[in-house]
């Protein structure tokens, strides 16, 4: 019998099952059809096994670089309810058990990516061999989608590698490279990628490497009831610290593993399936799946291969952002030129880049030699002479329109004709800037967030005369350097800062009304934000807040009228982290050392208690309102773009699915009602409902229906 997705062959007494046959997508995943085929194959295999008709069985992949990337997410997404999930899991368990129950020796030959269901299938084999291909990596990433490994991963992984490493993998979803998989006994051998299939039969019956005394003792200790209890307790504390309890999946995983200790296979798997079914229907998991698709879509780019690649980068201005951008180029082997006007200024950029590499060096993710090479690939220069080598120049000088225009006019005389020119401006008009150029078609805004090495989002800002190919090439580059792009139109604050502005502004008004710094930050944290608005203002710098506030008011009018508080702080020289005092105090390393008592002298209004829910609504509803303006102004094309921007640009809580997903779930009608109340009670201008939002409510539409 022949199959569409999986090859099946009995050759020289061995059974070979090849995954990823005829696969056109970049990753092979398990689909309903391929699971169905595998079931049929396994039925044949079981018959052969009964007759002792083969010496062994191997799973391998036809697709280079991918063994099996787990279950197709859309299958999980399509599960209608818990019962539906359970039905599907039962079929899969039967299949996976049939692999595990084979009498003949079995091995999974992992050459490339092996995720989720791919690893769970491998765990059903008696042995796992990994290739020495650098792409080979194994992981159970289900937790990232708010679920748990549902095909017996939580049952079989601890048996293979021991409890603590299994917990680490299942709770974090992290990828284990081939070499480390062998070290931690997840893999039984490392084989050369090119000769894997040829060598596999020789290794199939090799005795397992003997455990050292230390490993034996560790194993004995792990099986001890008391040790297990301590391990789970520690893991639970860690999970609570990392997730603040916003995510149910990790806690559920701990529960399943702990309760399953003495259960037999079928009981355990039934429990695992039940947990999976529950989680798969939780709102958090739905939202995380939603984000998975959003992110996946933002990575799609048509005709990618026909667009030019960036080989050499350049950055003008070696400040914190310039140095960060130089780091990004260097990290991605695009040996950048870094230009500034004095050696001292260049040193600042080098410091920033070096600091960004320091973490990787310390964690040994990078050798001293690699550090040397990458750091030295940054070419500091005081002139524009070398710019003709650059394929992409990113300008990051101070935010001054005249200066930037001068830089671009000069730059244009040095670069080659097809070099892309971009500005990392966060607040100036890209449209206006483009006028400095003879060829504005190759120009666009390219807005990075600080710190460049940590923030995944890049806003690509278009303008009237921008060549679509320029924008597409920038999208490709942003993806190549492993960042997430969104395309937005020119306008005050572009997308992220424009939506963030009312949030920070409302925070300042709330402070003036007498709400405490702690109550405010606490409310935002409890909503799921990575940091509160006061701490965020300290990070951004109050000087920048004042500047951006003015720009917003100029561009957006009365609804963006800034609170006077940021100006008061600025006048009192409380600039935030950059001069070690803002709402909080900081030591010389930038670590927060507590509240700044000076704040109480500046905010003199009477302390007012406000319930957390009200604070949250006052912070987040104006953001939704502004997002509606952004959509009606056509700054971006759809709600998904807003959500990608807010999640990757501000850390908006992923389990809420993004700002507008959250708004849809809250209900637009109730949001408008609450905004109207605030408009009446607090301020007419700031809470004026956007006409677009009103229209959506009257049309009974949601953001994601647009």
């Amino acid at each position: 019998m022949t199959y569409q997705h999986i090859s099946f062959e009995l050759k020289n007494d061995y059974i070979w099952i090849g995954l990823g046959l005829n696969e056109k997508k970049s990753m092979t995943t398990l689909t309903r059809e391929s699971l169905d085929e595998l079931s049929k194959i396994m039925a044949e295999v079981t018959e052969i096994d009964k007759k002792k008709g083969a010496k062994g069985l191997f799973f391998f992949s036809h697709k280079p670089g991918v063994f099996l990337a787990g279950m197709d997410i859309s299958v999980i997404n399509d599960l209608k309810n818990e019962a539906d999930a359970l039905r599907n899991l039962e079929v899969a368990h039967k299949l996976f058990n049939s692999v595990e129950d084979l009498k003949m020796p079995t091995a999974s030959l992992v050459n490339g990516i092996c995720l989720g269901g791919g690893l769970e299938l491998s765990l059903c084999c008696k042995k796992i061999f990994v290739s020495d291909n650098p792409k080979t990596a194994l992981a159970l990433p289900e937790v990232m989608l708010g679920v748990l490994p549902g095909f017996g991963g939580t049952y079989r992984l601890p048996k293979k590698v021991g409890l603590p490493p299994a917990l680490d993998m299942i709770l974090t979803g992290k990828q284990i490279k081939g070499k480390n998989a062998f070290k931690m006994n997840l893999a039984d051998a490392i084989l050369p990628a090119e000769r894997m299939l040829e060598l596999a039969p020789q290794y199939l019956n090799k005795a397992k490497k003997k455990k050292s005394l230390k490993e034996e003792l560790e194993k004995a200790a792990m099986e001890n009831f008391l040790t297990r209890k301590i391990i789970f307790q520690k893991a639970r504390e860690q999970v609570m610290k990392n997730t603040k309890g916003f995510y149910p999946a990790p806690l559920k995983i701990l529960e399943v593993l702990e309760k399953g200790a003495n259960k037999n296979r079928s009981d355990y798997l039934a429990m695992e399936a039940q947990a999976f079914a529950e989680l798969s229907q939780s709102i958090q998991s739905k939202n995380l799946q939603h984000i998975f698709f959003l992110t996946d879509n933002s990575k799609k780019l048509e005709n990618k291969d026909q667009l030019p690649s960036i080989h050499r980068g350049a950055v003008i201005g070696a400040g914190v952002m310039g140095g960060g951008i130089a780091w990004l180029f260097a990290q991605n082997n695009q040996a950048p030129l870094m230009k500034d006007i004095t050696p001292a200024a260049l040193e600042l950029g080098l410091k920033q880049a070096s600091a960004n590499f320091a973490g990787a060096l310390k964690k040994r993710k990078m050798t001293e030699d690699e550090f040397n090479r990458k750091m030295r690939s940054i070419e500091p220069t005081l002139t524009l002479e070398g710019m003709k080598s650059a394929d992409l120049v990113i300008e990051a000088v101070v935010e001054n329109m005249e200066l930037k225009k001068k830089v671009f006019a000069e730059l244009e005389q040095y670069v080659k004709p097809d070099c892309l020119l971009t500005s990392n401006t966060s607040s100036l008009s890209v449209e206006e800037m483009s006028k400095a150029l003879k060829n504005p078609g190759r120009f666009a805004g390219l807005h990075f967030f600080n710190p460049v090495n940590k923030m995944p989002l890049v806003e690509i800002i278009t303008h009237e005369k921008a060549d679509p190919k320029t924008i597409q090439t920038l999208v490709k580059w942003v993806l190549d350097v492993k960042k997430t792009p969104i395309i937005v139109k020119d306008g005050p604050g572009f997308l992220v800062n424009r939506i963030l502005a009312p949030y920070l502004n409302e925070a300042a008004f709330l402070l003036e009304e007498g709400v405490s710094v702690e109550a405010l930050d606490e409310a935002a944290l409890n909503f799921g934000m990575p940091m509160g608005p006061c701490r965020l203002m300290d990070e951004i710098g109050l000087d920048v807040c004042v500047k951006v506030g003015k720009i917003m008011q100029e561009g957006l009018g009365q609804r963006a009228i800034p609170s006077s508080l940021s100006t008061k702080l600025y006048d009192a020289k409380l600039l935030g982290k950059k001069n070690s005092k803002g709402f909080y105090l900081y030591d010389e390393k930038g670590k927060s050392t507590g509240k700044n008592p000076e704040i109480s002298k500046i905010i003199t209004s009477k302390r007012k208690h406000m319930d957390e829910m009200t604070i949250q609504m006052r912070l987040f509803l104006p953001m939704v309102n502004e997002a509606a303006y952004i959509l009606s102004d056509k700054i971006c094309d759809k709600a998904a773009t807003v959500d990608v921007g807010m999640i990757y640009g501000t850390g908006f809580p992923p389990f809420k699915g993004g700002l507008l997903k959250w708004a849809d779930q809250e209900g637009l009608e109730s949001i408008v009602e609450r905004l109207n109340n605030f408009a009446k009670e607090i301020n007419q201008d700031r809470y004026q409902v956007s006409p677009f939002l009103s229209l959506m409510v009257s049309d009974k539409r949601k953001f994601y229906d647009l």
Partner: protein
Amino acid sequence: MKPVYLVDGKRTPSVKAGADLKEIAAPYLGHYLVRHLLDKHGLPSDQIDEVIVGNTGTPAKYPNVGRVIALEAGLDKKTSGYSVHRNCASGMEALSQAYDKIGSGRAHLVFAGGVENMTQMPLMFNKQMTEFFMEMMKAKTTAQKLKIVSSFRPNFLAPVIAIEQGLTDPFCGRNMGQTAETLARELNISRREQDEFANRSHHLAAAATKEGKFREEILPITAGHKLDKMIADDIGFRDNSTVEGLGKLKPYFEKETGTVTVGNACPITDGGSMWLLASEEAVKKYNLDPVAKLVDYHFHGLEPERMGLGPVLAIQGLLQRTGMTLDQIDLFEINEAFAAQVLGCLKVMKDKNLSSKWGINETMGDIPLEKLNVNGGGIALGHPVGSTGSRLVVTLAHELKRRKKKYGLASLCIGGGQGGAVLIENLKL
């Protein structure tokens, strides 16, 4: 031979050993110069025919520095690269090979220069210790091992200092400093004369630095443990040097009666230099604007114990090859390995009797000090051995351009008993 163009040349700051460049491995004293020149002249990275780099220390990690520099600079992997060693003239040897390759039409674009990190020249285990290790490895039984361990003596740990060995001539057994002492004695060059010459070097270098003359030839280098510092100027020369101060130093090589001190000899230094050379065809194709033409070169041997006079023979040979006379040359760079040795060269060149000792049957003439090492020399700027040969040409070409003079000659003495010289013609008149 077809014409050979010196398109552009740059150097690192020269920094005394153990200071700011100490952590920079040899390849990184050159790769950034190559990349800068490539970027500046807008050349495609896959169009370079050869990278030739002079280096004497040959770091164990980088046996072929030239190839490493080609790769680290981002040149296409097909670019061939190699390293050359002609002791103190290695950088000049690199230029001469580029000259031959381009002149004969085999190559069109070549990077040639030199790099040396003298700080990183190693300390090695001595012979006894090496044998001790070997015996230990061979030993199988505990008794054998114990026997070998008991043979250990503390003096096994006395290191062999690579740099000290390298500066001692293996043929005549004399240290370079001792060869300078020989010249001082035989040619009657006093301690005072040497110190005055050394003092001149420091002040000229200090003045040139102060006027910013070196800004054009030095490309600032990324340095420091975290690679977040930029070094833009030479470090080592003394602007407060005096003849009296230099006079107080003890002779280093002949402690009692000698005249050569660390003050009138070149210091141990880290540095690199690099030239982009091109054929006429390449100049036209890439619209290059060369600064000078490499007219010719010459190397010549003599007795190792008088290696300091190498420039006399090299210059004489070069003038003969080119049919020119000493007075036609507008500017000279003669490496100051030792003041005694440079002064010795000048003395021999203008004295027929002395010249004849080395088979030169004419008076070559006088090199006036106004034309010699006008921005200081090795005594002030140091002598990173592998680099100096091309560094001299970098400095020479920049000064010729500034003065709008036509011919410049760079020469140096070479440990082991040789001299090297190149003649360049300034195209920026």
